[in-house]
């Protein structure tokens, strides 16, 4: 791997070198390294690009890294990754995509991730998106995440997109069985002329299922963001979605939340707040000796933490 690829790997996965545990590194549309472990098997798909990640039932405290890096300008990469998490397993999965585009053509990565999480299994899934490059080519990422949570299964999904992605459409679809729980935390910051759309659909099918979706975003310059969420309460369940956005400069943010209660015992809540940084927050930090710009940075850093 060259220095550019190593830097991308550091940004998206916090990795300086090959990770411990199972991993699959995809670089410029091809495999750059893979390791399966006794409990986690990674195999290539035969019918389409992508991999199957198979976690044996009962696997505990293991991790899987599956970073994707693109440093060739103009590369359009489409990949299907399927995760099969066995009953009672407890694993951390770190995905992420870094694009370095120094050319004039659009570079794109579209990842379709499907999680089949069996009964009583627990997954923490972390996904970071990062783009850089000094060319005029756009960096595009369109991740789709499909989540099937079995009985009493749990998934926590943290997504982060802070810099360098010109256009993104993130689609997340989840279906929860009885007692299953889903926690999603999304952090996005857009600047320049960037566009970001996030679209969540959650079906709370099982009794006592629960979903909690929190999106925090900052839109700067002339960037545009669209937040859509659609939660269906089909049983005794609780659903909570929250969209909290800071808007700056000439940016625009739309929030379109939808709740659909199909059962008298479903309890669904949506909260949305979009606005500029409160003047009193800036003033307070100024009275501590920060400049207006430093104060803004601190407020945004905290907000997206």
């Amino acid at each position, binding site marked *: 791997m060259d220095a550019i690829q190593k830097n991308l790997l550091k940004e998206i996965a916090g990795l300086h070198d090959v990770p411990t545990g199972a991993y699959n590194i995809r670089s410029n549309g091809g495999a750059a390294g893979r390791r399966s472990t006794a409990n986690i098997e990674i195999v290539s798909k035969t019918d389409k690009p992508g991999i199957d990640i198979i976690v044996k039932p009962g696997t505990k405290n293991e991790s899987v890294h599956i970073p994707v890096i693109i440093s060739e300008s103009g590369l359009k990469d489409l990949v299907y990754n399927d995760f099969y998490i066995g009953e009672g397993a407890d694993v951390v999965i770190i995905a992420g995509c870094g694009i370095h585009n120094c050319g004039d053509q659009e570079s794109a990565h579209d990842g379709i991730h499907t999680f089949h999480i069996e009964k009583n299994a627990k997954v923490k899934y972390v996904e970071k998106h990062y783009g850089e490059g000094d060319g005029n080519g756009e960096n595009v990422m369109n991740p789709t995440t499909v989540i099937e949570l079995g009985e009493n299964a749990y998934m926590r999904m943290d997504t982060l997109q802070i810099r360098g992605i010109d256009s993104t459409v993130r689609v997340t679809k989840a279906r929860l069985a009885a007692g299953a729980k889903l926690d999603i935390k999304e952090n996005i910051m857009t600047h320049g002329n960037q566009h970001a759309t996030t679209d969540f659909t959650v079906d709370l099918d099982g009794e006592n299922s629960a979903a909690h979706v929190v999106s925090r975003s900052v839109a700067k310059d002339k960037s545009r963001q669209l937040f859509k969420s659609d939660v269906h309460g089909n049983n005794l369940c609780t659903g909570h979605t929250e969209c909290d956005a800071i808007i700056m400069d000439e940016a625009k943010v739309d929030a379109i939340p939808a709740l659909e209660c199909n059962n008298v015992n479903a309890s669904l809540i949506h909260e949305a707040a979009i606005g500029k940084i409160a003047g009193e927050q800036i*003033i*307070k930090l*100024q*009275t501590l000796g920060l400049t207006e710009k430093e104060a803004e940075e601190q407020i945004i850093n*905290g907000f*997206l933490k």
Partner: protein
Amino acid sequence: MLELQHVSYVAPDDGKEILSDVNLTIDDKFVAITGPNGGGKSTLAKVIAGIYPVSKGKILLDGADITALSITERAKAGVSFAFQQPVRFKGITVKDLVTLAAGKKITTAEVCTYLSEVGLCAREYVNREVNASLSGGELKRIEIAMTMARGTKLSIFDEPEAGIDLWSFSNLISVFRKMREKIGGNIIIISHQERILNIADKVIVIAGGKVTAEGSKEEILPALYADAAKEAACSVLMSKVEDK
């Protein structure tokens, strides 16, 4: 030492003069500012901190003219201001804020020392977000801890007792007593509380945008309480008249 020379402040929205020709010299360690609601006390604090620009007059800190300085520049010059209504921040922790106030990297143990001094169990608070989950009283104490961490030559507290429960109030008094002993500069406290006024070296009364009295607590307080008693008696009588 803080000096205000012929300071006036006119509210930009309605043109009303809220402070008019205020002249003050603050060189005592612990100065309490009191007076009726709406008399201009909080405005005076904001004018000193640079949040409101003066319409006329001059402000001097240790002889240096700070009138034209911004909020940030005044903070760096040595002015601290604890808000009457502390501000909440999503995602920023108590430790973050106290560290920003200190203006340098400080250890968690140091942050905890400040929190303990204002009567907060440090372990429970140090990593909490300064958001809506904290009560008004908790926020007020964090605000005071931040001012202590800054340790500047001038500290202004706008009604620190507001929102603090009775039990914590005794603690608050001891916090200010301690601060008074330690601090090398001046403390200004805007307050209505007799117990705070009682530990002041000097009491200033502001009403109708003007300084109406100034002196030691022995000189000022008896007259102040007599006036307050008169007003209270008057309102009792008035209500009786109205009842009939």
